[in-house]
């Protein structure tokens, strides 16, 4: 167990160089709300911690092409305090609000929530359904990757050893779009999703759903993006029949395990219940968000 080294580079290029040069396990430190806890409980023993909070530009939320760009070091609380973001992306804010306690939210970042690669991460399903794109920086420059392609298995991401998420882009939503996220936990807060469901949908002038995305958290090794669920809504007025179809598709899309947080059987049932509730909430929002 070599000693731990802590670095706080002043640029992304330096951070990438340090990652590339490291011999042993490394971790990026943003809020640290997962990394520090995992170190304390001996789950990980990194040799190098790279704190990205000193890198200029990673702390801002800026308007871009009618959408938003969110820096990788932006805290959950900062997102919750951003009025325009809250107005257009209530689903993402619902997910962000559920991360840990108030104190944890003051530190935790959405980038960290994504890179921790837990299938139960609350901000990930609504980011996916909102079409969020991660900007990943490495030695050869940047590439844009849809967030659903970042986690590949519990605790594992598609990032190379010397790559860092720099920011997220949330594209502008079409008119009459709405998103929502809900999770099921036995406790009201300070808990991990047993099932989480995010829905984004867009209506036309007649109230018919023209586009939909549905993502299910904690029911598979990574967040499940279900086209069957989306198809259950598209072309309908999100009526009872569509919701019934959605609920069945949500249950069918689950690939859960039995674990300390819930049983397989329970997760499959509750995914259907939540899908229906979340779709109704997204519908309500699509009708009211211009």
């Amino acid at each position, binding site marked *: *167990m070599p*000693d731990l080294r802590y670095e706080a580079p002043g640029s992304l290029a330096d951070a990438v160089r340090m990652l590339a040069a490291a011999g042993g396990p490394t971790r990026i430190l943003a809020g640290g709300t997962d990394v520090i806890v995992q170190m*304390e*409980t*001996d789950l990980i023993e990194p040799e190098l911690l790279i704190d990205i909070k000193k890198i200029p530009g990673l702390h801002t939320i800026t308007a871009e092409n009618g959408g938003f760009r969110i820096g990788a070091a932006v805290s959950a609380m900062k997102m919750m305090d951003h009025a325009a973001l809250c107005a257009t992306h209530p689903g993402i804010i619902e997910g962000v609000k559920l991360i840990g306690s108030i104190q944890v939210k003051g530190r935790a970042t959405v980038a960290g929530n994504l890179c921790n690669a837990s299938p139960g991460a609350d901000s990930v399903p609504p980011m996916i359904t909102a079409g969020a794109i991660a900007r990943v920086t490495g030695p050869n420059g940047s590439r844009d990757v849809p967030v659903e392609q970042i986690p590949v298995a519990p605790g594992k991401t598609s990032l190379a050893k010397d790559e860092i998420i720099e920011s997220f882009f949330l594209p502008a939503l079409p008119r009459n779009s709405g998103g929502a996220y809900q999770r*099921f936990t*036995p*406790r*009201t*807060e*300070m*808990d*991990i999703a*047993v099932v989480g469901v995010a829905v984004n949908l867009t209506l036309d002038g007649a109230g018919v759903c023209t586009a939909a995305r549905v993502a299910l958290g904690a029911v598979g090794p990574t967040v499940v993006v279900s086209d069957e669920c989306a198809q259950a809504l598209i072309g309908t007025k999100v009526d009872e029949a569509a919701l019934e179809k959605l609920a069945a598709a949500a249950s069918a899309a689950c690939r859960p395990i039995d*674990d*300390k*947080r*819930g*049983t397989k*059987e*329970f997760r499959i*049932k*509750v995914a259907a*219940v939540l899908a229906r509730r979340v779709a109704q909430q997204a519908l309500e929002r699509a009708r009211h968000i211009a």
Partner: protein
Amino acid sequence: MTTILEKPGYNPDKQYKIVGTSPVKHDGFDKVTGRAKFAADAFLPGMLVGKFLRSPHPHAILKRIDISKAEKLPGVKAVVTRDDFPEIKAGTGGGDMTRLVMAREKVYWEGHPVAAVAATSESIAKKALKLIEVEYEVLPHVIDPLEAMRDDAPILHDYMRTKGAKGPAAEKKTNVVERLELSKGDIEKGFAQADLIVEGSYDTKPMHQGYIEPQSCIASVSDDGQVDLWCCTQAPWVYRDRLTEILKWDSSKIRIQQSELGGGFGGKTTFYAEPVSIVLSKKAKAPVKMTLTRIEVLRGTGPVSGTASKLRMGCKKDGTIVAVDAELVFQTGPYSGSAFTNAPQAMLTRYEIENVKTVSFEVVSNRPKVSSFRAPCVPQVVFGVEGLIDEMARKVGMDPLDFRLKNAIVEGHKTIYGETFTKIGFVETLKAAKACDHYKSPVPKGQGRGIACGFWFNRGGETTGSMALAPDGTVNIILGTADVAGSRMSMSMMAAEEFGIPVDRVRSQLADTNSLGYNRVTAGSRTTYSSGMIVVDSARKIIAELCRRAAKMWNVPEEGVVFEDGHCRPASSNVGDFPPLSMKDIAAKTTYTMGAICGHSEMNVTGAGPGFAVHIVDSEVDKETGLVSIKRYTIVEDAGKAISPLQVEGQFQGAAVQGIGWALNEEYIYGADGKLQNPAFLDYRMPVASDVPMIDTVIVEVANPKHPYGLRGVGEVPLTPAMAAIANSVGACIGIRPSSLPMSPPRLLKLIEEAKAKGLG
């Protein structure tokens, strides 16, 4: 010298100035600002960090431990194993204790300590742990107590034979520590009189006490064998005597100073790291601090017993309960010590029932040894009892409180365990529950209401304390009983009431074990009662002495002086025309009278009056997910007399919150490998603030005649009916009364589906 125990003198007409008010606790400021020193805040120069190596197996023979590589690591100052502890025969009290602290022949649960290291830093200590080589011969394990009772179960202790077993069962190897029968009357005759018989099987899971402060201690052992130990404990004197036993050390050379306690609830009545830190310190010749992590707390320290019970009860059409038959199983971890005998004694004590049969079993298995927890083993069994009582009330068509009133015991009741009660307040408590706003309000639509009742003995026991008057007339109280819930403030209040001075002129401190005589563990809801006796007795001794000194100063006979409102006054104008002497006036002159004025008292306190509680719960169930929300919760309980009503309410509310956790989500989850899967608060789901409503309280005051202020213990009674009341309310929501805890969403959802299939709910 006589004490107040012999002439308690409860005076119902006395008007109080301080008792019955709720001043800000003297220790409150430090706790709110972070200045209070908890065990882990202690620091000694040159102190080392101690860490445990724990077994990864739930059951294995400990074949070989090689510490040579760890000892050679720079920075490592001592490594200890079983070889550093005196051998004590297995199967004895001391033998179990020493094996609990450090495994000897076998490891009995995942997390059982097998070695410990003291090093100059935590990271070196952790590295050293990895260098210790342990050879295990893994054995089959058993977690569930009912499985542990089966003939083909792995046997933990070859020497174990069931105490109290008869016939061939008494001879065979077993995991059943004891079989205990406690009965009265004739249940066959009783059931024959019954118009209605109800029955059920119930199970509850072990629950951790969940104190915020993990155990921490520093031991410093001098070359001549003087031990100084700082730790968080509910039982300094008990720790000292047990250390004497397992370390073969003189008690007089062990000085234990208790720190502020960050919660105990019964869990800090047993030591874990303390003996190990002493042995490490002796070997390293330096102070050693050991602080458990939360994972170690959940993996290594005691929860309370899980239980399985089979109950049958019968009543007449008019609601009279005529017979109860109970078979109760208590899981205790690898060693006896569940205090299960509380359960058959307390489970029905509040009802007048002629025919009762109870058979209880205590069973070992491969999980952490259980420890005390508020009314140990009682709430688990009340969970079933009060469910059946509700069912009987419903089936005979009576209001649930009226049904309980019909069977309620009163003064003069002779309990199943032989005690005859003096004045008790169960009927008053039931009537107060009936009259309270919650019970009178209609059940809101979509919700279910449940009620349940509970009882706890309340305890007394050996207690010692001192009191000293300072030259400025202020008073210092020295207590040996740990302050788990604000008892120091209650002591200051009782002393201030006796003296008739402002409570701010009195302070209470906690002594170390060399500074006072023996104090029994702070447990059993005994402290405010027992140390309260000591405080009142000591204060009255000081008052008598103040009168003697005043008589001396005035040169009048002692009987010519009276004491009131903090002053000595002439008993009448015949004595002389002396201006009153304040406590300060007399205290400032003690050099010229007879020296310092102190009070002291020691007693084996008896007469702690029993307590009774009624809980009323409204809950709502999401029938699609099985999620329970507790909407309204009221506790009605007899406190005898609330010294500080705010603190009594805190006891009630805390118990309700722990009951909600136990009822809804808290459980230990084991894999097939016998390893605990949720040793963290993230997945060991204690309730958070937003999970619980404001808990309303109604304090009933039926004075305990044995105490000068009439108080009864309030720490444990309020947990006893909690899970039963919650389950009764959930049952009212869904149509089937849950019989298994926790009522977690997956379990409850199945029950909801079962109820729907049966057309209930």
